Protein backbone atom coordinates (compact mmCIF):
# COMPACT_ATOMS: atom_id res chain seq x y z
CA UNK A 1 0.00 0.00 0.00
CA UNK A 2 1.31 3.45 -0.90
CA UNK A 3 1.79 5.73 2.05
CA UNK A 4 -0.30 8.84 1.98
CA UNK A 5 1.97 11.73 2.94
CA UNK A 6 -0.98 13.66 4.31
CA UNK A 7 -1.96 10.95 6.67
CA UNK A 8 -0.58 11.53 10.12
CA UNK A 9 0.16 8.54 12.28
CA UNK A 10 -3.24 7.96 13.78
CA UNK A 11 -2.72 6.60 17.24
CA UNK A 12 -6.41 6.35 17.95
CA UNK A 13 -7.13 4.11 15.02
CA UNK A 14 -4.14 2.04 15.82
CA UNK A 15 -5.42 1.61 19.37
CA UNK A 16 -8.76 0.52 18.01
CA UNK A 17 -7.16 -1.94 15.64
CA UNK A 18 -5.42 -3.64 18.50
CA UNK A 19 -8.73 -3.75 20.34
CA UNK A 20 -10.45 -5.34 17.38
CA UNK A 21 -7.65 -7.86 17.18
CA UNK A 22 -7.15 -8.34 20.89
CA UNK A 23 -9.04 -8.02 24.12
CA UNK A 24 -10.80 -5.13 25.76
CA UNK A 25 -9.36 -6.00 29.16
CA UNK A 26 -6.17 -7.90 29.68
CA UNK A 27 -4.49 -8.80 32.96
CA UNK A 28 -0.92 -9.81 32.30
CA UNK A 29 0.91 -11.44 35.20
CA UNK A 30 -0.70 -9.05 37.63
CA UNK A 31 0.56 -9.11 41.21
CA UNK A 32 -1.04 -7.15 44.00
CA UNK A 33 0.44 -7.17 47.47
CA UNK A 34 -0.47 -5.41 50.66
CA UNK A 35 2.79 -5.52 52.55
CA UNK A 36 3.75 -9.18 52.62
CA UNK A 37 0.24 -10.34 51.88
CA UNK A 38 -0.05 -11.43 48.26
CA UNK A 39 -3.64 -10.86 47.14
CA UNK A 40 -3.26 -11.42 43.40
CA UNK A 41 -0.56 -13.82 42.37
CA UNK A 42 0.58 -13.43 38.74
CA UNK A 43 -2.99 -13.23 37.55
CA UNK A 44 -3.75 -13.63 33.85
CA UNK A 45 -7.15 -13.21 32.29
CA UNK A 46 -8.80 -11.44 29.41
CA UNK A 47 -12.24 -10.08 28.69
CA UNK A 48 -13.58 -9.52 25.18
CA UNK A 49 -15.55 -6.44 24.25
CA UNK A 50 -19.26 -6.70 25.01
CA UNK A 51 -18.91 -9.69 27.28
CA UNK A 52 -20.52 -10.07 30.65
CA UNK A 53 -18.09 -11.68 33.01
CA UNK A 54 -18.86 -12.71 36.55
CA UNK A 55 -16.20 -13.17 39.19
CA UNK A 56 -17.02 -15.66 41.89
CA UNK A 57 -14.99 -17.04 44.72
CA UNK A 58 -14.68 -17.10 48.48
CA UNK A 59 -14.51 -13.90 50.48
CA UNK A 60 -11.00 -12.50 50.56
CA UNK A 61 -9.98 -14.13 47.28
CA UNK A 62 -9.25 -10.76 45.64
CA UNK A 63 -12.37 -10.12 43.53
CA UNK A 64 -12.86 -6.58 44.79
CA UNK A 65 -9.16 -5.92 44.36
CA UNK A 66 -9.41 -6.75 40.65
CA UNK A 67 -12.18 -4.22 40.13
CA UNK A 68 -10.37 -1.61 42.20
CA UNK A 69 -7.20 -2.09 40.15
CA UNK A 70 -9.20 -1.61 36.96
CA UNK A 71 -10.75 1.55 38.37
CA UNK A 72 -7.23 2.68 39.41
CA UNK A 73 -8.33 2.98 43.01
CA UNK A 74 -5.37 0.78 43.86
CA UNK A 75 -1.87 0.58 42.48
CA UNK A 76 -0.64 -2.57 40.83
CA UNK A 77 2.46 -4.16 42.42
CA UNK A 78 3.76 -6.00 39.34
CA UNK A 79 2.60 -6.87 35.85
CA UNK A 80 0.40 -4.97 33.45
CA UNK A 81 -3.27 -4.26 32.95
CA UNK A 82 -4.34 -3.27 29.45
CA UNK A 83 -7.65 -1.65 28.61
CA UNK A 84 -8.37 -1.28 24.93
CA UNK A 85 -4.76 -2.20 24.30
CA UNK A 86 -3.48 0.68 26.43
CA UNK A 87 -1.73 0.05 29.71
CA UNK A 88 -3.82 1.34 32.58
CA UNK A 89 -1.15 2.37 34.98
CA UNK A 90 1.68 3.05 32.55
CA UNK A 91 2.14 5.46 29.68
CA UNK A 92 4.58 5.65 26.84
CA UNK A 93 7.99 6.87 27.92
CA UNK A 94 11.04 7.65 25.78
CA UNK A 95 12.03 5.07 23.09
CA UNK A 96 8.96 2.91 23.42
CA UNK A 97 9.54 2.21 27.09
CA UNK A 98 6.80 2.43 29.70
CA UNK A 99 6.74 4.76 32.64
CA UNK A 100 4.22 5.11 35.46
CA UNK A 101 1.13 6.94 34.28
CA UNK A 102 0.52 10.46 35.49
CA UNK A 103 -2.79 11.67 36.85
CA UNK A 104 -3.96 13.16 33.55
CA UNK A 105 -3.33 9.99 31.57
CA UNK A 106 -5.09 7.93 34.21
CA UNK A 107 -8.13 10.18 34.10
CA UNK A 108 -8.27 9.74 30.35
CA UNK A 109 -8.16 5.96 30.53
CA UNK A 110 -10.53 5.92 33.48
CA UNK A 111 -13.25 7.69 31.49
CA UNK A 112 -13.92 4.43 29.67
CA UNK A 113 -14.66 2.65 32.91
CA UNK A 114 -17.57 3.07 35.29
CA UNK A 115 -18.03 1.50 38.67
CA UNK A 116 -20.96 0.79 40.95
CA UNK A 117 -20.11 0.25 44.58
CA UNK A 118 -21.54 -1.98 47.26
CA UNK A 119 -22.32 1.08 49.40
CA UNK A 120 -23.69 3.18 46.47
CA UNK A 121 -21.49 6.18 47.33
CA UNK A 122 -23.94 8.72 45.99
CA UNK A 123 -23.05 12.33 46.79
CA UNK A 124 -25.32 13.22 49.74
CA UNK A 125 -24.95 16.96 49.16
CA UNK A 126 -26.52 16.70 45.69
CA UNK A 127 -29.94 15.65 44.54
CA UNK A 128 -30.50 12.75 42.16
CA UNK A 129 -30.25 14.88 39.04
CA UNK A 130 -27.05 16.59 40.18
CA UNK A 131 -25.51 13.25 41.08
CA UNK A 132 -26.09 12.06 37.54
CA UNK A 133 -25.15 15.24 35.65
CA UNK A 134 -22.05 16.31 37.60
CA UNK A 135 -19.54 14.18 35.72
CA UNK A 136 -21.07 14.46 32.22
CA UNK A 137 -20.95 18.25 32.58
CA UNK A 138 -17.62 18.72 34.33
CA UNK A 139 -15.69 15.82 32.80
CA UNK A 140 -17.22 15.20 29.38
CA UNK A 141 -18.11 18.85 28.80
CA UNK A 142 -21.77 18.26 27.95
CA UNK A 143 -23.89 21.34 28.28
CA UNK A 144 -26.37 21.27 31.11
CA UNK A 145 -29.48 20.72 29.00
CA UNK A 146 -27.88 17.79 27.21
CA UNK A 147 -26.72 16.25 30.48
CA UNK A 148 -30.15 16.66 32.02
CA UNK A 149 -31.81 15.06 29.05
CA UNK A 150 -29.43 12.13 29.31
CA UNK A 151 -30.13 11.92 33.05
CA UNK A 152 -33.87 11.96 32.40
CA UNK A 153 -33.62 9.05 29.98
CA UNK A 154 -31.55 7.09 32.44
CA UNK A 155 -33.95 7.81 35.27
CA UNK A 156 -36.77 6.52 33.08
CA UNK A 157 -34.77 3.38 32.51
CA UNK A 158 -34.11 2.82 36.21
CA UNK A 159 -37.70 3.75 37.01
CA UNK A 160 -36.98 6.74 39.21
CA UNK A 161 -38.02 9.73 37.12
CA UNK A 162 -40.24 11.01 39.93
CA UNK A 163 -37.25 11.11 42.32
CA UNK A 164 -35.28 13.52 40.17
CA UNK A 165 -35.09 16.23 42.86
CA UNK A 166 -34.88 13.89 45.84
CA UNK A 167 -31.73 13.68 47.91
CA UNK A 168 -30.03 10.30 48.42
CA UNK A 169 -31.04 10.16 52.10
CA UNK A 170 -34.69 10.27 51.01
CA UNK A 171 -34.30 7.11 48.94
CA UNK A 172 -34.30 3.44 49.88
CA UNK A 173 -31.11 1.47 49.42
CA UNK A 174 -32.46 -0.11 46.25
CA UNK A 175 -33.38 3.28 44.82
CA UNK A 176 -29.99 4.70 45.73
CA UNK A 177 -28.27 1.84 43.98
CA UNK A 178 -30.38 2.35 40.86
CA UNK A 179 -29.40 6.03 40.85
CA UNK A 180 -25.77 5.00 41.26
CA UNK A 181 -26.14 2.75 38.22
CA UNK A 182 -27.68 5.62 36.25
CA UNK A 183 -24.84 7.88 37.36
CA UNK A 184 -22.25 5.42 36.10
CA UNK A 185 -24.08 4.92 32.79
CA UNK A 186 -24.38 8.67 32.21
CA UNK A 187 -20.66 8.65 31.41
CA UNK A 188 -21.34 6.12 28.61
CA UNK A 189 -18.56 3.85 29.82
CA UNK A 190 -17.30 0.98 27.71
CA UNK A 191 -16.80 -1.08 30.81
CA UNK A 192 -19.03 -1.28 33.86
CA UNK A 193 -17.64 -2.70 37.09
CA UNK A 194 -20.15 -3.98 39.61
CA UNK A 195 -18.92 -4.98 43.05
CA UNK A 196 -21.55 -6.93 44.99
CA UNK A 197 -24.01 -4.18 44.23
CA UNK A 198 -26.90 -5.89 46.00
CA UNK A 199 -25.17 -7.13 49.12
CA UNK A 200 -25.92 -3.98 51.16
CA UNK A 201 -29.62 -4.11 50.26
CA UNK A 202 -32.56 -5.41 52.21
CA UNK A 203 -33.62 -8.74 50.66
CA UNK A 204 -36.87 -7.39 49.21
CA UNK A 205 -34.96 -4.70 47.28
CA UNK A 206 -32.46 -7.01 45.62
CA UNK A 207 -34.69 -8.22 42.79
CA UNK A 208 -35.38 -4.71 41.44
CA UNK A 209 -31.70 -3.92 41.10
CA UNK A 210 -30.86 -7.29 39.55
CA UNK A 211 -33.70 -6.90 37.03
CA UNK A 212 -32.29 -3.54 36.05
CA UNK A 213 -28.84 -5.02 35.55
CA UNK A 214 -30.30 -7.84 33.47
CA UNK A 215 -31.97 -5.26 31.28
CA UNK A 216 -28.71 -3.34 30.89
CA UNK A 217 -26.88 -6.54 30.06
CA UNK A 218 -29.42 -7.49 27.41
CA UNK A 219 -30.03 -4.09 25.82
CA UNK A 220 -26.60 -2.45 25.77
CA UNK A 221 -23.20 -3.46 24.48
CA UNK A 222 -21.41 -2.44 27.65
CA UNK A 223 -18.78 -4.86 28.81
CA UNK A 224 -19.66 -5.89 32.35
CA UNK A 225 -17.40 -7.20 35.04
CA UNK A 226 -19.44 -8.29 37.94
CA UNK A 227 -18.65 -9.61 41.40
CA UNK A 228 -21.69 -11.26 42.92
CA UNK A 229 -22.95 -13.84 45.35
CA UNK A 230 -26.23 -14.04 43.47
CA UNK A 231 -25.58 -17.21 41.52
CA UNK A 232 -28.95 -17.17 39.75
CA UNK A 233 -28.21 -13.72 38.46
CA UNK A 234 -24.69 -14.71 37.45
CA UNK A 235 -26.13 -17.61 35.50
CA UNK A 236 -28.62 -15.30 33.74
CA UNK A 237 -26.35 -12.56 32.56
CA UNK A 238 -22.88 -14.03 32.22
CA UNK A 239 -21.13 -15.18 29.10
CA UNK A 240 -18.25 -16.27 31.23
CA UNK A 241 -17.66 -17.06 34.88
CA UNK A 242 -14.27 -16.83 36.53
CA UNK A 243 -13.76 -18.76 39.73
CA UNK A 244 -11.13 -17.22 42.01
CA UNK A 245 -9.18 -18.72 44.79
CA UNK A 246 -5.84 -17.88 46.34
CA UNK A 247 -5.28 -14.91 44.10
CA UNK A 248 -5.67 -16.84 40.86
CA UNK A 249 -8.35 -17.89 38.43
CA UNK A 250 -8.70 -21.59 39.15
CA UNK A 251 -11.45 -22.25 36.65
CA UNK A 252 -13.33 -20.34 33.99
CA UNK A 253 -15.98 -21.06 31.43
CA UNK A 254 -19.58 -20.50 30.40
CA UNK A 255 -22.02 -20.38 33.33
CA UNK A 256 -23.76 -23.64 32.33
CA UNK A 257 -20.51 -25.52 32.74
CA UNK A 258 -19.19 -23.76 35.86
CA UNK A 259 -22.50 -24.09 37.67
CA UNK A 260 -23.56 -27.39 36.12
CA UNK A 261 -20.38 -29.38 35.94
CA UNK A 262 -17.38 -27.69 37.54
CA UNK A 263 -14.02 -29.36 37.01
CA UNK A 264 -12.34 -28.22 40.17
CA UNK A 265 -13.11 -29.69 43.55
CA UNK A 266 -12.62 -26.21 45.07
CA UNK A 267 -15.30 -24.74 42.78
CA UNK A 268 -17.69 -27.52 43.69
CA UNK A 269 -17.14 -26.87 47.39
CA UNK A 270 -17.64 -23.15 46.96
CA UNK A 271 -20.83 -23.54 44.94
CA UNK A 272 -22.37 -26.01 47.33
CA UNK A 273 -21.64 -23.57 50.16
CA UNK A 274 -23.33 -20.60 48.48
CA UNK A 275 -26.15 -22.20 46.56
Amino acid sequence: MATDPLQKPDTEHRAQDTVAAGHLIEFDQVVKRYGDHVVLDHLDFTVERGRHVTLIGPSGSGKTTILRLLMTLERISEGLILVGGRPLSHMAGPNGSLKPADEKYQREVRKKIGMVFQQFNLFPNMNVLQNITEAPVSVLGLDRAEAEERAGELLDMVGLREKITAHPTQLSGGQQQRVAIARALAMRPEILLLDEVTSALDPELVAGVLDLLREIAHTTDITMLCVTHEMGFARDISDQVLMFDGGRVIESGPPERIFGDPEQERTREFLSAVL
Partner: protein
Amino acid sequence: MNYTWDWGAMRQALPLLLTGFETTLLATVLGILVAAVLGLVVAMLGRAPTRLVTIPVRAVTEFVRSTPLLVQLVGAYAVFNTVRPLTIGIAVLGIHYASYLSEVYRAGIDAVPRGQWEACRALSLSPRRTWQAVILPQAVRNVLPALGNYGISMFKETPFLAVITVTEMVAQAREYGANHFVYAETFTLAGLIFLVASYPTSLLMRKLEKRLGH
Protein backbone atom coordinates in the same frame (compact mmCIF):
# COMPACT_ATOMS: atom_id res chain seq x y z
CA MET B 1 -21.20 49.44 103.17
CA ASN B 2 -24.24 50.65 101.43
CA TYR B 3 -24.18 50.89 97.67
CA THR B 4 -27.25 52.33 96.01
CA TRP B 5 -27.85 50.83 92.60
CA ASP B 6 -28.25 53.58 90.03
CA TRP B 7 -30.86 52.39 87.53
CA GLY B 8 -30.86 55.80 85.86
CA ALA B 9 -27.18 55.47 85.03
CA MET B 10 -27.85 52.16 83.35
CA ARG B 11 -30.52 53.72 81.23
CA GLN B 12 -28.31 56.66 80.35
CA ALA B 13 -25.29 54.50 79.48
CA LEU B 14 -27.31 52.23 77.23
CA PRO B 15 -27.05 54.24 73.97
CA LEU B 16 -23.31 54.62 74.41
CA LEU B 17 -22.88 50.92 75.10
CA LEU B 18 -24.93 50.09 72.05
CA THR B 19 -22.58 52.09 69.82
CA GLY B 20 -19.76 50.10 71.37
CA PHE B 21 -21.77 46.96 70.70
CA GLU B 22 -21.82 47.79 67.00
CA THR B 23 -18.02 47.66 67.00
CA THR B 24 -18.11 44.40 68.96
CA LEU B 25 -20.50 42.87 66.46
CA LEU B 26 -18.53 44.12 63.48
CA ALA B 27 -15.29 42.71 64.87
CA THR B 28 -16.94 39.36 65.55
CA VAL B 29 -18.65 38.98 62.19
CA LEU B 30 -15.62 40.01 60.16
CA GLY B 31 -13.29 38.10 62.47
CA ILE B 32 -15.22 34.86 62.07
CA LEU B 33 -15.35 35.35 58.30
CA VAL B 34 -11.58 35.75 58.15
CA ALA B 35 -11.19 32.73 60.42
CA ALA B 36 -13.59 30.61 58.33
CA VAL B 37 -11.79 31.32 55.06
CA LEU B 38 -8.26 31.28 56.40
CA GLY B 39 -8.92 28.16 58.46
CA LEU B 40 -9.98 26.34 55.31
CA VAL B 41 -6.93 27.52 53.41
CA VAL B 42 -4.67 26.35 56.24
CA ALA B 43 -6.43 22.98 56.41
CA MET B 44 -5.96 22.46 52.68
CA LEU B 45 -2.32 23.58 52.78
CA GLY B 46 -1.85 21.06 55.58
CA ARG B 47 -2.79 18.33 53.09
CA ALA B 48 -0.28 19.48 50.49
CA PRO B 49 1.80 16.63 49.10
CA THR B 50 5.12 18.22 50.09
CA ARG B 51 6.54 18.78 53.55
CA LEU B 52 8.00 22.06 52.30
CA VAL B 53 4.45 23.33 52.73
CA THR B 54 3.03 21.26 55.55
CA ILE B 55 5.84 21.78 58.07
CA PRO B 56 5.89 25.61 57.99
CA VAL B 57 2.08 25.66 58.01
CA ARG B 58 2.00 23.42 61.06
CA ALA B 59 4.70 25.49 62.82
CA VAL B 60 2.80 28.74 62.32
CA THR B 61 -0.56 27.36 63.45
CA GLU B 62 1.08 25.76 66.47
CA PHE B 63 2.66 29.09 67.36
CA VAL B 64 -0.59 31.01 66.98
CA ARG B 65 -2.51 28.45 68.97
CA SER B 66 -0.10 28.34 71.87
CA THR B 67 0.36 32.08 72.47
CA PRO B 68 -2.34 34.17 74.19
CA LEU B 69 -4.67 36.29 72.11
CA LEU B 70 -3.80 39.30 74.22
CA VAL B 71 -0.10 38.97 73.45
CA GLN B 72 -0.85 38.62 69.73
CA LEU B 73 -3.03 41.72 69.79
CA VAL B 74 -0.46 43.88 71.58
CA GLY B 75 2.35 42.51 69.42
CA ALA B 76 0.52 43.20 66.17
CA TYR B 77 -0.50 46.65 67.41
CA ALA B 78 3.14 47.49 68.15
CA VAL B 79 4.41 46.22 64.81
CA PHE B 80 1.71 47.58 62.50
CA ASN B 81 1.43 50.94 64.19
CA THR B 82 0.11 52.70 61.09
CA VAL B 83 -2.87 50.36 60.63
CA ARG B 84 -6.26 51.13 62.15
CA PRO B 85 -6.60 49.35 65.52
CA LEU B 86 -9.96 47.84 64.60
CA THR B 87 -8.44 46.35 61.43
CA ILE B 88 -5.60 44.87 63.44
CA GLY B 89 -8.09 43.52 65.94
CA ILE B 90 -10.17 41.82 63.26
CA ALA B 91 -7.09 40.37 61.57
CA VAL B 92 -5.65 39.02 64.83
CA LEU B 93 -8.97 37.56 65.94
CA GLY B 94 -9.38 36.01 62.49
CA ILE B 95 -5.90 34.51 62.42
CA HIS B 96 -6.11 33.30 66.02
CA TYR B 97 -9.37 31.49 65.42
CA ALA B 98 -8.26 30.26 62.00
CA SER B 99 -5.60 28.23 63.77
CA TYR B 100 -8.32 26.44 65.73
CA LEU B 101 -10.75 26.20 62.85
CA SER B 102 -8.13 24.65 60.57
CA GLU B 103 -8.13 21.68 62.96
CA VAL B 104 -11.91 21.52 62.78
CA TYR B 105 -11.81 21.65 58.98
CA ARG B 106 -9.15 18.96 58.94
CA ALA B 107 -11.36 16.72 61.02
CA GLY B 108 -14.37 17.65 58.88
CA ILE B 109 -12.52 16.70 55.70
CA ASP B 110 -11.27 13.47 57.25
CA ALA B 111 -14.84 12.63 58.22
CA VAL B 112 -15.95 12.54 54.57
CA PRO B 113 -16.13 8.80 53.85
CA ARG B 114 -13.48 7.24 51.63
CA GLY B 115 -16.23 6.05 49.31
CA GLN B 116 -16.92 9.65 48.33
CA TRP B 117 -13.36 10.11 47.09
CA GLU B 118 -13.56 6.80 45.26
CA ALA B 119 -16.84 7.73 43.59
CA CYS B 120 -15.16 10.95 42.39
CA ARG B 121 -12.30 8.96 40.92
CA ALA B 122 -14.62 6.45 39.32
CA LEU B 123 -16.38 9.35 37.60
CA SER B 124 -13.04 10.90 36.57
CA LEU B 125 -13.84 14.17 38.34
CA SER B 126 -10.93 16.60 38.33
CA PRO B 127 -9.28 17.31 41.69
CA ARG B 128 -10.89 20.73 41.58
CA ARG B 129 -14.44 19.44 41.10
CA THR B 130 -13.79 16.72 43.66
CA TRP B 131 -13.06 19.36 46.30
CA GLN B 132 -15.52 21.95 45.15
CA ALA B 133 -18.56 19.85 44.38
CA VAL B 134 -18.20 16.88 46.70
CA ILE B 135 -15.68 17.05 49.53
CA LEU B 136 -15.92 20.63 50.76
CA PRO B 137 -19.72 20.88 50.85
CA GLN B 138 -19.75 17.79 53.05
CA ALA B 139 -16.79 18.91 55.16
CA VAL B 140 -18.30 22.34 55.76
CA ARG B 141 -21.46 20.66 56.96
CA ASN B 142 -19.34 18.86 59.52
CA VAL B 143 -17.67 22.13 60.45
CA LEU B 144 -20.71 24.38 60.79
CA PRO B 145 -21.59 23.60 64.43
CA ALA B 146 -18.01 24.25 65.57
CA LEU B 147 -17.95 27.44 63.52
CA GLY B 148 -20.93 28.68 65.51
CA ASN B 149 -19.33 27.82 68.84
CA TYR B 150 -16.06 29.50 67.95
CA GLY B 151 -18.03 32.52 66.74
CA ILE B 152 -19.68 32.85 70.15
CA SER B 153 -16.42 32.49 72.01
CA MET B 154 -14.78 35.05 69.71
CA PHE B 155 -17.69 37.36 70.46
CA LYS B 156 -16.93 37.06 74.16
CA GLU B 157 -13.23 37.74 73.62
CA THR B 158 -13.71 41.00 71.74
CA PRO B 159 -13.25 43.06 74.97
CA PHE B 160 -9.54 42.31 74.60
CA LEU B 161 -9.61 44.72 71.67
CA ALA B 162 -9.91 47.54 74.19
CA VAL B 163 -6.24 46.96 74.98
CA ILE B 164 -5.34 48.19 71.52
CA THR B 165 -7.66 51.22 71.87
CA VAL B 166 -10.63 49.82 70.00
CA THR B 167 -13.67 51.29 71.74
CA GLU B 168 -15.93 48.29 71.70
CA MET B 169 -18.69 47.88 74.24
CA VAL B 170 -16.67 47.05 77.35
CA ALA B 171 -14.32 49.96 76.72
CA GLN B 172 -17.37 52.21 76.54
CA ALA B 173 -18.71 50.73 79.76
CA ARG B 174 -15.45 51.34 81.55
CA GLU B 175 -15.19 54.90 80.32
CA TYR B 176 -18.75 55.79 81.23
CA GLY B 177 -18.42 53.99 84.55
CA ALA B 178 -15.22 55.82 85.41
CA ASN B 179 -16.65 59.22 84.55
CA HIS B 180 -19.85 58.73 86.54
CA PHE B 181 -18.69 56.33 89.27
CA VAL B 182 -21.16 53.66 88.12
CA TYR B 183 -18.81 50.81 87.17
CA ALA B 184 -21.04 48.11 88.57
CA GLU B 185 -24.04 49.33 86.65
CA THR B 186 -22.36 49.78 83.29
CA PHE B 187 -20.44 46.51 83.47
CA THR B 188 -23.60 44.69 84.47
CA LEU B 189 -25.33 46.25 81.53
CA ALA B 190 -22.51 45.19 79.19
CA GLY B 191 -22.74 41.66 80.58
CA LEU B 192 -26.49 41.62 80.02
CA ILE B 193 -26.07 42.76 76.44
CA PHE B 194 -23.55 39.94 75.84
CA LEU B 195 -26.01 37.48 77.35
CA VAL B 196 -28.95 38.78 75.35
CA ALA B 197 -26.94 38.53 72.14
CA SER B 198 -25.14 35.22 72.62
CA TYR B 199 -27.80 33.10 74.28
CA PRO B 200 -30.27 33.19 71.37
CA THR B 201 -27.36 32.69 69.00
CA SER B 202 -26.30 29.52 70.76
CA LEU B 203 -29.91 28.29 70.79
CA LEU B 204 -30.05 28.97 67.07
CA MET B 205 -26.81 27.06 66.54
CA ARG B 206 -28.15 24.09 68.47
CA LYS B 207 -31.25 24.08 66.29
CA LEU B 208 -29.12 24.27 63.17
CA GLU B 209 -26.99 21.37 64.39
CA LYS B 210 -30.11 19.29 64.91
CA ARG B 211 -31.35 20.10 61.45
CA LEU B 212 -28.05 19.08 59.97
CA GLY B 213 -28.41 15.81 61.81
CA HIS B 214 -25.43 15.96 64.15
